């Protein structure tokens, strides 16, 4: 099935620069409906009112980390594809995210090809 590039994507990061980078890279890949949230709480609110086809989230945020956000989303029974984009590269962190239900994991700094590959692994080839 072809990937719907009109899907709503939510990008969550407390650094505005990173949100802009991901947003622009997604646009270059053809995705047009990109929302943003600068913390987990705001993300939860947005997820409550809009249907997202993908969440891309940082880990290191306060007070709610990306891992907390993931656990909350999965705890609410939501199976939205969730990609963690983070500088946290320790094995135990990756495993913790995996256990919490993350679909894929991108380590910062990353390039556009890596983002595309990970998106394809979660959404299907495009």
């Amino acid at each position, binding site marked *: 099935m072809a990937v719907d590039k009109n899907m709503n994507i939510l990008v969550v990061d407390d650094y505005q620069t990173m949100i802009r980078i991901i947003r622009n890279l997604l646009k270059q890949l053809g995705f047009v409906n990109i929302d943003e949230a600068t913390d987990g709480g705001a993300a939860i609110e947005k997820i409550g009112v809009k249907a997202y086809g993908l969440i891309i989230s940082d880990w290191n945020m306060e007070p709610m980390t990306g891992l907390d956000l993931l656990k909350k989303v999965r705890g609410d029974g939501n199976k939205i594809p969730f990609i963690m984009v983070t500088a946290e590269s320790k094995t135990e962190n990756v495993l913790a995210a995996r256990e919490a239900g993350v679909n894929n994991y991108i380590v910062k700094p990353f390039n*556009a090809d890596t983002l595309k590959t990970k998106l394809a692994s979660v959404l299907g080839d495009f």
Partner: protein
Amino acid sequence: MNASQQAAAEQFKDRAYSRKEVVEIIRSVLGTIDRDSEPTAKLHQELTTLVAYIDGMRTELAQLRSIEISHNHIPAASDELDAVVDETAKATGTIMDACEKIGELAGGLSPPFSTELANAVTSVYEACGFQDITGQRITKVVKTLKHIENKVTEIISAFGHAGQMTVSGMIDRDDKKLLNGPQLKGNGSSQEEIDKLLAGFD
């Protein structure tokens, strides 16, 4: 331990003691020790050494000017690092504004120019990720500095403030080399102000 000793121990459990209180307690214990008995002579010697050590630590801390560290050097270092994060975020924002503009213009061109421009813009976006990484690292350093500042403040409280420099004496930082460096927001003059100043000499 008998009942009254137990009650006394319970009363003072989990309580923080100042340096002065600790020294007084040790001195009062020393006063009750029979120095002629061999085991207590050794205990007396140990306790005397401990009192001298605590007093010596206080003098060393006063020389360290720990108030200056916690109230001056560390906050100044934190401010400078916060400024680094702010300035790099601003510069990165400007770079991305330009890239977004270039990306729009590239859309109006035909291949191969459009493709090459788009690839170049992508490279710039990828490189801009540096600001996120450096920002996180610097934030970690600032948190560490604040932790050190809190610990130094606790030590100052425990050992008392006698012998420390007064606040008014702390302005003269030992970083005269930095006086000509970039100024934090609100300090220093703007380009316009400097131009006006120099124009006044013409």
